[in-house]
């Protein structure tokens, strides 16, 4: 992992540059190195560690954030490329009054095992549902193909996304449709321990 390691400078190094962007609805600024990625700046400079660092080659999706409305791997975006942009991270998913439909559905379906890939899965799923509010199963599979899960909880994750889409499409539905599982009571009180970073990290 390259981030966080001491910098061995050779010759004249470019000075830090000011970066301004909006993260989870709040204007943020930082002085950043031009070769640092959006992932490094989110985690290190802005303290938003919900976005995970893993493969650093765009294969795993653990670092997924929404940049100007589209999901991207933050490990493949330079921080300065995001100047002036609007970024949504996992910390920005929860609504003020509790978990959003996706987070609740992930809990209900037991989609999180070790949990490491889950922030990326949730953010990718959020972008998917923004683009396709009622996706087919194949569209969910394709939409999340860039998010690997070492615990291989793919089935539960796909079910959770389909369920969340349905809850969003029919929020007033009182009785649960036939799809298995998914107790549909009012959202349980947010449990910070089960949603790493969602409530504890600074936004």
């Amino acid at each position, binding site marked *: 992992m*390259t981030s966080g390691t001491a910098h061995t400078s050779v010759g004249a190094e470019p000075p830090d540059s000011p970066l301004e962007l909006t993260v989870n609805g709040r204007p943020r600024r930082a002085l950043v190195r031009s070769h640092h990625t959006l992932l490094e700046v989110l985690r290190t400079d802005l303290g938003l560690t919900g976005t995970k660092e893993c493969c650093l080659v765009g294969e795993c999706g653990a670092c997924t954030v929404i940049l100007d409305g589209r*999901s991207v791997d933050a490990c*493949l975006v330079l921080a300065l490329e995001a100047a002036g942009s609007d970024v949504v991270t996992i910390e920005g998913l929860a609504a003020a009054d509790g978990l959003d439909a996706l987070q609740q559905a992930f809990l209900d379906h037991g989609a999180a095992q070790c949990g490491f890939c889950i922030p990326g899965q949730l953010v990718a799923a959020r972008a*998917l549902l923004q683009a396709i509010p009622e996706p087919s199963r194949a569209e969910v599979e394709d939409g999340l193909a*860039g998010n690997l899960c070492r615990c291989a909880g793919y089935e539960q994750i796909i079910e959770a996304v389909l369920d969340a889409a349905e809850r969003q499409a029919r929020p007033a539905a009182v009785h649960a449709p036939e799809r298995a599982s998914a107790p549909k009571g009012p959202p349980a009180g947010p449990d910070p321990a089960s949603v790493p970073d969602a409530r504890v990290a600074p936004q």
Partner: protein
Amino acid sequence: MRAFAFEQPGSLAEALAILRAEPDARILAGGTDLIIGLRDGSILSPTVIDLKRVRELDASIVETVGGLAIGALTAMTEIAADPRIRARYTALAEGAAVVGSVQIRNRATLAGNICNASPAADTTPALLAFGAVLTVHGPDGSRQVALDDAFVSSGVTTLGHDEIVVRIDLPAIPGRVGSTHVRRTRRRGHDLASVTIACAVLESGETRVAFGSVGPRPLLRVDTTGILADPSATDAARLEILDDVFAAAAPSAGSMRASPEYRLAMLRVLGLRAVETARARRDGAAA
């Protein structure tokens, strides 16, 4: 990642001036190849020039006389979704749709896929089959380069270090056309392909077959006998033509992805399938 200076020029002239002053500067579009190279040290560059604020460049897809012009910043997501590309240049939409993942397709540009010149790139066979033409800006102004004249070998093009692709033209196709992109990968999802083929069957009976991953650069071959495009042609007759088409395939023995024998066998199988799919699409049948 090694430190580098980051430039966001607002105009082509500024970008070209930086390239002239810095022979080792590198152009950044979506970054899905470049940032990986910068991080693993295979690319060392003192200066990275981001194209995304250059006012002459955009992510547009506009109609030209019968064809389409694609801006240098257009990403795979737009290519795969564009109704005009899906209808007339289907193989290109299909190729763009299988690049990496949603996250990758949201960043990866078509121009970057071309300039990176990977023999396994998923959009270049379709672009070759459709006769794509690049408009390139350099120190001496603007020039046009037929895509077939741009590729040399893996990672190497005939474009100068100080030239910037500003748009990609898809020429008009006369009459009905059907096309498809097929590829063979070890697993579903984002994995570079071991065989990539794009095939376009035209109303005239001409069939254009372009293929990659089986040599240092993607290749285009055109069948004018009409046999590939003939619905009543037997597989045997088509294979005879396809064996000529694929004669120049030279997969390297050193690849971890697939042996040369396997790739050559898959070329014939997928080639036959691609021809029939494209032919059926041209003739309006569901394929």
